[in-house]
């Protein structure tokens, strides 16, 4: 009798123990996830010379907004911010329109080129010519380097986004398009007036993916616009200010004046302030879009 009671007690004990441990573990995980972010924010609001001592946790030790003031007085920051915003907005807009149109066309089973085009599109996920041939095409054949368009034109297509959109459109009731067709609407009209508005959730997902990808891109600046200061993006400015020690081995693909900038010692507070500035737009948009992207990921993940 008593043995059974002990056993039951143990069982109850275990049933409470696991959720508690689990909750503690997950809280710890959230803490580990957020710590580097909050730490960076704290350092960015700390006094520059004091920050060199290290040991700043989640709160600035000697509060100072000097780093942000010096960013605000740097004209390069404004132009970089402007370039980053414009490339992101234009790329996202074009990508969403073009990819959703393509997805619509490839969702029509009666379209005779459907199989061929779909095959060619999916194959891009497997065939990759590599960095240098792409670089030669963009810089030498198309002469896009040192222009703003190098941020827009080469990033127009992603097969993953196509699959996400196409899967979603194929899941819409066939009767919608069919009834519009009977009423005499052509395919373009069906797309714009019926399909496109219905795709809002998945369009938001794709827009988020494209926008984040474009905003976070720094390598194209380095590769194609390293000598054009007026085309620098925020991420590239930040990249140049990463601690100088890690840069010595990586002097590749930077022009003379870009190199000069990297070797200047940057106070850690300024680096953190740029980090915050370049992360804030994502943190602001993120909560509004986050209910959409899980659906998108699952749609794309299942097919892709």
């Amino acid at each position, binding site marked *: 009798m008593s043995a059974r009671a002990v056993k039951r007690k143990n069982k109850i004990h275990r049933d409470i123990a696991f959720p508690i441990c689990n909750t503690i573990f997950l809280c710890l995980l959230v803490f580990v996830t957020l710590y580097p972010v909050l730490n*960076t924010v704290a350092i960015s609001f700390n006094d520059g010379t004091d920050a060199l001592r290290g040991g700043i946790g989640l709160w600035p030790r000697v509060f100072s907004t000097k780093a942000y003031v010096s960013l605000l007085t740097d004209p390069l920051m404004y132009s970089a911010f402007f370039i980053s915003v414009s490339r992101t907005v234009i790329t996202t807009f074009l990508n969403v329109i073009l990819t959703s149109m393509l997805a619509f066309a490839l969702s029509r089973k009666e*379209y005779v080129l459907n199989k061929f085009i779909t095959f060619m599109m999916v194959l891009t996920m497997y065939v990759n*010519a590599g960095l240098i041939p792409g670089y030669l095409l963009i810089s030498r054949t198309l002469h896009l380097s040192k222009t703003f368009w190098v941020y827009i034109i080469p990033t127009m*297509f992603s097969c993953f986004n196509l699959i996400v959109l196409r899967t979603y459109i194929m899941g819409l009731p066939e009767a919608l398009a069919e009834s519009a067709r009977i009423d005499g609407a052509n395919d373009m009209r069906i797309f714009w007036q019926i399909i496109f508005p219905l795709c809002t959730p998945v369009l938001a997902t794709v827009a988020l993916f494209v926008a984040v990808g474009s905003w976070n891109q720094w390598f194209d600046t380095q590769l194609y616009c390293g000598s054009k200061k007026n085309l620098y993006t925020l991420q590239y400015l930040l990249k140049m200010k990463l601690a100088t020690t*890690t840069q*010595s081995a990586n002097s590749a693909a930077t022009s003379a004046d870009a190199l000069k900038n990297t070797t200047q010692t940057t106070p850690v507070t300024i680096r953190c302030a740029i*980090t915050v500035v370049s*992360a804030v737009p994502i943190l602001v948009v993120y909560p509004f879009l*986050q209910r959409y992207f899980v659906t998108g990921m699952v749609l794309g993940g299942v097919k892709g």
Partner: protein
Amino acid sequence: MNGATPKVYKKKKGFFETLKGQGWLMVMSVPMLLYVLLFNYSPLWGWICAFQDYKPAKGIFGSKWVGLGNFQWLFSRDDFLLSIRNTLAMSMINLVMGTLSAVILAVLLNEVRNRAFKRSVQTLTYLPHFLSMVIVVGMAQNIFASNGAINDLLLKLGIVDEPVFFLGEEKMFWWLVGIINVWKEVGWNTIIYISAMTSIDPTLYEAASIDGAGRFQRMLNVTLPGIKSTFVVLLIMNIGHLMEAGFEIQYLMGNSQVIDYSQTIDVFVLKYGISNNQYGRAIAAGMFKSVVAIFLLFLANFIAKKLDEDTLI
């Protein structure tokens, strides 16, 4: 199927006749096809340069042919062989650590009954996925600095006597990359597993409980088998990506002290192709990588077929 009648009707119509009625669909899709042909397929033409001593001034037709010389040069170089090793090592570490952490986190999240708590944990752990690698490396430099948080913690716990210079230790580089990638992607990678778990029939859990299965037994015998097919598909797909160890993190975090362990094939290509202008050799290295990657993809697809899972191509 009653769809058979229109099909027969369609077959009567010629290919071009049908196409004529689909003008708008062509307007929507053909420009993107041309775009892909230009930006994704035409660079393949550049692979010819892998067999040349390519000089941009002379062009593909004027450059000297060297046959397999570029490849011979590559495989005679220690730093290329090291970058193959580093690429494979880091992608393996990323694969194992990334998959394990995601599965564990997904299983743990699946056990959380409080919806609000579950959602907040998910939302917060997805967040780093959206931060750029530049930002992440910048943060890592703060955290792993000799006076950063990790060293503070290790010193306080008495595990080390003096600060470890994480970013300058060759042996630690791979693991650092693995840890940073897990930090960045673990939440994001759970999405697909959690969605697989929601499709597990709840009656299976009930049946298991009635049969006397405890919480851990339910996890082992219901949850894990429920995500098995997703797990296998993702694993096989990742075999196809073994040549992709990433490039940004190694490029941004590498330095002269750790270069033997940090240089991946992509970084090698960049170094020789862009800064040393040795296009032929760099293209050969990139081509080697792409060809091996395609081979791995076919291998992965073959394994998938053998295992009777979904095919990938």
